[in-house]
């Protein structure tokens, strides 16, 4: 199967929320080890659970040093959030070196405050939500609840969230040194109803094609052919049921198909054997059936091919697949169709559709245009299997 290269590229750009078609990160810097570890664990959690209770969008932001009223402050870039985004939670992370008997006392002495740089907001002392050793890292960490501060910044349309970290009874070392040694970062969990902006994607795609034609590069390949293989998968999971009984007997019954007990003399195994034998007698029919019957087909797209590997940490490839093929009328075997689909194929004029039966999330872990580390979850984006529905 072929898919349009420009369309795929613009789709990825839209999913990652990059504004420019070919972004340039002027200064590439490696994120701190602590931030990377934190996001890696979160990403694996997103993969395992196929979503996250705290939202479908997580940003980890490293600070710059600023000055406010003559004192040093930590400045976090919170510009460019989605207009329909809901801030669920925000945490300010801070690490103490040398896990020893003094770490606990030092952690108690450390304080964090949000600094008010907008005339409408108020300075807030942050509340500690966790103090202790990190199981993955041999370091002591302090986490403050910064939800209200970030929430205020977002709703006041501020471009920055500003914090000051101090120590009781002692002077805090210079902030540049603090950033280097204690690697503070801000984690913001959001919920956003983000779907693909198809109008924008189509517009950008056509614009890219026009530009290429104007440059006289019509010979450049416009279609992606990499690893084009049929991805047929016979596994089937039932579509969502409503008002179904929840007991073992009901579950056992629900695995039956509609033919069972409807007066059929032959068993399911016998019917399938007969059907397979009839098909095997005609090789041409077998090939035609396999190609035309309901199946999954698709393309494995490498992000490196488009240059996105500079920004996207995970995944390396994306499966672009779809359901293709026909559903027999009437359906001879019931293995890949629901009871309703079988009845519809027998009786109704409307044909039965070959469609996805289970869908999985696509999770991106990447660095955005402002150098922030982001995890984005898109639900129901990848096909597990196809069936007649």
């Amino acid at each position, binding site marked *: *199967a*072929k*898919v*349009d290269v420009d*369309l795929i590229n613009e*789709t990825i750009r839209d999913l990652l929320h990059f504004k420019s078609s070919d972004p340039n990160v002027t200064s590439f810097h490696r994120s701190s080890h602590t931030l990377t570890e934190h996001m890696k664990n979160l990403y694996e959690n997103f993969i395992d659970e196929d979503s996250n209770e705290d939202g479908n969008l997580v940003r980890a932001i490293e600070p710059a040093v600023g000055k406010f009223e003559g004192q040093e402050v930590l400045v976090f870039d919170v510009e460019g959030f989605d207009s329909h985004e809901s801030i669920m939670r925000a945490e300010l992370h801070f690490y103490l070196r040398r896990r020893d008997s003094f770490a606990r006392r030092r952690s108690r002495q450390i304080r964090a405050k949000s600094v008010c740089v907008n005339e409408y907001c108020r300075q807030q002392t942050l509340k500690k939500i966790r103090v202790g050793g990190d199981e993955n890292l041999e370091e002591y960490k302090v986490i403050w609840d910064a939800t209200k501060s970030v929430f205020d910044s977002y709703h006041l349309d501020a471009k920055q969230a500003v914090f000051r970290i101090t120590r009781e009874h002692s002077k805090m070392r210079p902030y540049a040194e603090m950033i280097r040694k204690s690697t503070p970062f801000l984690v913001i969990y959001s919920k956003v109803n983000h*779907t*693909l902006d*198809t*109008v924008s*994607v*189509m517009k950008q*795609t056509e614009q890219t094609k026009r530009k290429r034609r104007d440059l006289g590069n019509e010979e450049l390949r416009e279609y992606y052919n990499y690893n084009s293989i049929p991805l047929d998968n016979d596994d089937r999971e*039932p*579509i*969502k*049921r*409503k*008002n*179904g*009984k929840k007991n073992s007997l*009901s579950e056992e*019954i*629900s*695995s*039956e198909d*509609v033919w069972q*007990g*409807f*007066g059929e*003399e032959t068993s399911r195994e016998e019917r399938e054997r007969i059907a397979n034998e009839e098909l095997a007698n005609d090789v041409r029919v077998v090939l035609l059936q396999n190609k035309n019957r309901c199946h999954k087909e698709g393309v494995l797209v490498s992000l490196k091919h488009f240059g996105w590997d500079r920004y996207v940490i995970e995944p390396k490839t994306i499966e*672009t697949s*779809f*359901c*293709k093929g026909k559903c027999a009328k009437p359906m001879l075997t019931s293995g890949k169709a*629901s*009871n*309703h*689909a079988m*009845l*519809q194929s*027998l*009786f*109704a004029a*409307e044909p039965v*559709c*070959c*469609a*996805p039966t289970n*869908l999985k999330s*696509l999770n991106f872990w990447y660095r955005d245009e402002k150098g922030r580390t982001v995890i984005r979850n*898109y*639900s*129901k*984006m*990848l*096909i597990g299997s196809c069936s007649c*529905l």
Partner: protein
Amino acid sequence: RKNRKKGRKHHNTEAESNLCRRTDFYVDFDDLNWQDWIMAPKGYDAYQCQGSCPNPMPAQLNATNHAIIQSLLHSLRPDEVPPPCCVPTETSPLSILYMDVDKVIVIREYADMRVESCGCR
């Protein structure tokens, strides 16, 4: 004098009425010649999914992220990529009283017999 009817009836455009939706579909077991086996019910409202999934897809079609992308791919390569399909997104079971091959009367619940809602997939 007869009062004129208030308000004009909302008239769907032809395109709107052909969008993906749930429509009537009654299964009559007599028509299937299953009445000898099935004692109850005589038939039931199974419903079906009908209509198109155009690009771009209106929000009411309850399309998944995947269906939205497939719709884009189809618009550029209609021969290669099929459009998203209007299919059941939620179903419900049906209990049937029937006589099995041993002439025993059985009540059994069958999954996915009735369509509750439709969407573009």
